């Protein structure tokens, strides 16, 4: 032990110090408990607690190789375990013996504290007495035995007690002075610290308020006082903050053991490297990252690092390396958990997401590798093996992510196949108080966390508009030679924009690793703000990170820079990502149609709704093969039939040799099947409210409209597919085979989109543009389901319902309302209908139509219909 201690690192001494503090506390408790126990010998809970305390001390002594302590505590433990198990009755003499042990332990501890050694006294005699007491015949059941046992008689007990106690007192008087370590540290309840922190938070707010008054008044005395208040508050804040800081090593300490156990259990060789264990973090944060960290480390051991033989085969050393790194960076703490294992197999992740039904195949195909990696954070993504042998604790990666995000952190995952993966946690130092920039927008006040703030730009004068330029309708700003995407906060939050200001304020923000400019109406100042969480009703809004109380006592919302960036679309990384982001957006705001614009033959601008597009691909000309008389290409282990749009739209124009290489192909999906439409060039993705102006007579086109100030033709996808592959999309036997659906919708474009999806699903589709047309069509043929736009002219879709309910033969025809947006689906206007769906949510719409059509089938005769109707109406809501 001595050698160890002399060579012992600083860390060892820290650990011993902790042991001393803890043991002193335990011993004081033990004193109390033993005295209590003497009064109530029947209290088994008390006895168990005493046992545990002694056991803990013994265990720790063994760890530090404090042999004397270990010996006596071990003997005491033996005795106590007999007592606990009821094998022996608790007598005052035994209590005294244990108390004596406690005193001896104290002496040894004092010696350890003073010299680092246990001291000369071996307490052999005490240990022997403890041993004897433990080995004395037990008195379980028979009283006489205890009388004849060498255990002290009642008299000697009395003696014992009377002579032990003074000794113990003496020892305390002249011997061991009060422990310095124990006295220099106070254990304080976390609750109290939290409360202090809250109070300091309030104090900071009040200080801000007073400072604000101060600027309004010109009073020297007030000025001085408030300056002092300012200083003191700041210092107090820092002090209280420090009380809650703990080194991250506190959490890491248990990781070597975790890694070792995992490695042994799985037959792997893993070396753990830890760097930056002294990085300090707020206690609450330490608490919050504890489980996620352990989980991530276990994950790396389990899934990351390969067994030695696999590693050797891959040309890597047999021993895997797991590295933990923690460091401060820009007011945040970064923690990296990296391994040099196999990395994450993106294809398998995608596969798994499909199997688990977390995503649909067309969604999976659209994912970039980075997005696919992030799939592992989806709830329910943990693999079967994980549940059985490794984590088994119900902590999946989704929990890791949500735990980290709960404390305002970010989880990022990087992986290179064959080289390993790294999970990076970015975590705020503290949750409670952060500096923020107060800005104005649409008459409201908002706070932007300073962490995300890069710079402020103010564009003045008449030319201010010229500074923000447009790239195809997207605002950008030339900042030191490079383009900065711009978002308008007013627009992101649907606020009234202020009157034309004389200047434009751009707040340059950093979200993740990208930057963007946010235009706001005004910039006030920076303030220390206390972050308060939003209530659960508002948790779903990704625009906000929380709220705070300003100097004037009013509440201001704290913007979530990442969320704002995502909502405004400026954070779209690539075309791929743009689409996903946009897709998310489309759920909230569907008036805007997202369109893919492309060119083919003499058609300079063609468009299809992006929602129907699965992927954009390029195929080298050499990869085109021929099968069954048509052109195909091998694509994702399947055969993808190709359709040349040019040949389709202009069959009369002689086709020159295909000179374009590679071919630009738009892939459309329907369930398992795909078709590739060859176009000349992909132009752009536009987002606009579409008003179809003119219906086209040409086959293959729906009509034309003005998109981005240019006339654009809409491709009739359904027609294109029918014209080419004939039966390709047919025989789908869609749920609705033979059923007739009437689509009443004023916009020819929307009608076209809805029709094409219904067509594909096997319905016969009739179109109507207004109420009268609807009635006319209804008279002409029996209709199974009516889809009516909520805004159908002249009086809205509800009029269709009313009209149908007037005629007995139409009364039972279910009517589904077509809403422009998800929000409208929930509106009260939708109530008169059997169901209501977002008109561009293809899947949901088809499902609802199928449900209504079959409900009509089964309910034709009975009263069940009304119930079904109610049920589906309820579902729709």
């Amino acid at each position, binding site marked *: 032990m001595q050698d160890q201690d002399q060579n012992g690192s600083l860390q060892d001494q820290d650990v011993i110090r902790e042991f001393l503090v803890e043991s002193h506390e335990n011993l004081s408790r033990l004193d109390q408990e033993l005295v209590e126990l003497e009064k109530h010998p029947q209290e088994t809970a008390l006895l168990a607690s005493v046992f545990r305390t002694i056991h803990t001390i013994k265990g720790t002594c063994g760890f530090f190789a404090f042999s004397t302590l270990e010996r006596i505590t071990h003997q005491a433990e033996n005795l106590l375990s007999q007592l606990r198990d009821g094998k022996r009755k608790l007598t005052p003499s035994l209590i005294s013996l244990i108390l004596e042990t406690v005193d001896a332990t104290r002496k040894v501890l004092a010696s350890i504290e003073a010299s680092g050694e246990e001291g000369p006294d071996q307490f052999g005699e005490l240990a022997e007495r403890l041993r004897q007491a433990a080995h004395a015949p037990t008195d379980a059941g028979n009283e006489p035995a205890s009388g004849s046992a060498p255990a002290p008689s009642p008299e000697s007990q009395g003696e014992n007690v009377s002579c032990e106690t003074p000794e113990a007192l003496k020892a305390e008087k002249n011997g061991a002075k009060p422990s310095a370590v124990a006295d220099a540290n106070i254990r304080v*309840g976390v*609750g109290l610290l939290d409360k202090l922190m809250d109070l300091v*938070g*309030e104090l900071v*707010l009040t200080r801000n308020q007073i400072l604000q008054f101060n600027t309004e008044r010109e009073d020297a005395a007030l000025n001085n006082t408030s300056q002092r208040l300012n200083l003191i508050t700041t210092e107090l804040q820092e002090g209280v903050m420090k009380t809650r800081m703990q080194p991250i090593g506190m959490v890491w300490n248990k990781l070597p053991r975790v890694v070792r156990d995992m490695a042994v259990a799985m037959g792997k060789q893993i070396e753990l490297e830890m760097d930056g264990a002294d990085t300090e973090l707020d206690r609450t944060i330490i608490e919050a990252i504890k489980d996620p960290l352990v989980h991530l480390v276990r994950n790396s051991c389990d899934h990351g690092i390969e067994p030695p033989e696999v590693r050797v085969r891959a040309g890597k050393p047999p021993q895997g390396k797991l590295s933990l790194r923690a460091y401060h960076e820009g007011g945040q703490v970064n923690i990296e958990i990296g391994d040099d294992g196999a990395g994450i197999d993106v294809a398998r992740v995608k596969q798994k997401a499909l199997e688990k039904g977390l995503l649909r195949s067309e969604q999976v195909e659209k994912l970039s590798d980075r997005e696919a990696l992030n799939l592992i954070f989806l709830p329910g993504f943990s693999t079967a093996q994980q549940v059985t042998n490794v984590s088994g604790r119900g902590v999946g990666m989704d929990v890791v992510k949500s735990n980290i995000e709960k404390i305002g952190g970010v989880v990022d995952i990087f992986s290179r196949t064959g080289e390993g993966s790294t999970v990076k946690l970015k975590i705020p130092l503290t949750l409670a108080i952060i500096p923020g920039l107060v800005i104005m927008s*649409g008459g*409201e*006040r908002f706070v932007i966390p300073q962490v995300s703030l890069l710079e402020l730009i103010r564009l003045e004068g008449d030319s201010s508009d010229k500074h923000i330029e447009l790239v195809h309708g997207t605002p950008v700003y030339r900042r030191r030679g490079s383009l900065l995407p711009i978002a308008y906060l007013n627009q992101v*939050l*649907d*606020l009234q924009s202020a009157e034309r200001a004389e200047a434009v304020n751009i707040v340059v923000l950093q979200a993740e690793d990208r930057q963007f400019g946010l235009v706001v109406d005004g910039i006030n100042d920076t303030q220390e703000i206390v972050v*308060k969480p*939003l*209530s*659960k*009703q*508002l*948790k*779903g*809004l990704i*625009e*906000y990170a929380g*709220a*705070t*109380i300003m100097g004037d*006592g*009013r*509440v*201001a*919302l704290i913007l979530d820079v990442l969320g704002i960036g995502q909502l405004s679309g400026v954070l779209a990384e690539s075309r791929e990502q743009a689409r996903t982001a946009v897709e998310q957006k489309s759920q909230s705001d569907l008036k805007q149609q997202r369109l893919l614009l492309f060119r083919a033959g003499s058609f300079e601008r063609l468009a299809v709704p992006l929602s129907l597009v699965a992927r954009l691909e390029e195929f080298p000309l050499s990869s085109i093969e021929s099968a069954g008389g048509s052109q195909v290409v091998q694509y994702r282990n399947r055969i993808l039939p190709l359709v040349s749009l040019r040949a389709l739209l202009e069959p009369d124009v002689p086709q020159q040799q295909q000179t374009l290489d590679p071919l630009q192909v738009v892939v459309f999906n329907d369930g398992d099947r795909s078709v590739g439409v060859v176009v000349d060039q992909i132009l752009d993705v536009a987002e606009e409210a579409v008003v179809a102006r003119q219906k086209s007579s040409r086959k293959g086109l729906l009509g034309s409209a003005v998109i981005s100030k240019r006339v654009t033709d809409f491709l009739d996808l359904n027609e294109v597919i029918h014209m080419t592959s004939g039966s390709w999309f047919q025989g789908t036997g869609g749920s609705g085979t033979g059923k007739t659906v009437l689509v009443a919708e004023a916009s020819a474009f929307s009608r076209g989109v809805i029709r094409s999806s219904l067509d594909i699903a096997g319905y016969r589709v009739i179109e109507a543009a207004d109420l009268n047309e609807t009635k006319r069509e209804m008279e002409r043929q029996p209709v199974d389901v009516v889809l009516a736009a909520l805004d159908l002219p002249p009086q809205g879709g509800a009029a269709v319902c009313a009209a149908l309910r007037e005629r007995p033969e139409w009364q039972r025809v279910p009517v589904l309302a077509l809403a422009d947006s998800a929000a409208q689906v929930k509106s*009260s206007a939708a109530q008169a209908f059997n169901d209501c769906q977002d008109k561009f949510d293809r899947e949901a719409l088809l499902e609802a139509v199928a449900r209504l059509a079959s409900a009509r089938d089964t309910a034709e005769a009975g009263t069940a219909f009304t119930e079904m109707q109610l049920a589906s109406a*309820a579902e729709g*809501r």
Partner: protein
Amino acid sequence: MTNEIASAKSDLAESGGQFSTFFVADLFFGVDVLRVQEVLRFQHMTHVPKAPQVIEGLINLRGQIVTAIDLRRRLRLPPRAGDQMPTNVVIRTDDGAVSLLVDEIGDVLDVDAATYERPPENLDPAAREIIRGVYKLKDRLLVVLDTEKAVEIAA
């Protein structure tokens, strides 16, 4: 040692007892009196852009930020007259305090369990969701509000 704060979660919905009452349009509502933290006159509110419509805004309740929910909108009732200022009834919920905006505050009433009845089946779904039952008082009906449900709004 953490103090186990006795949570006021006793459920009086069906067993009678004391109810804080308030008015929303022509409805007379009651909430278990222990659930009501306090009642405040109308306060300045911070509007939350893009929040669900029923959320009127955020108020500062002595350093605590409380979300205010307009009960009229929650019940799909017409908005109150322009000059009528709503009153905040601050309710304790499992997730902290939430303020319900009501038209006017009433007395605390003792009601008898025997007069309790489940809400009528044909109640408007918007209301049915958040109404637990009805007490038949002598001169009027007291509608028992399910506060947990009333504040259950997804953003």
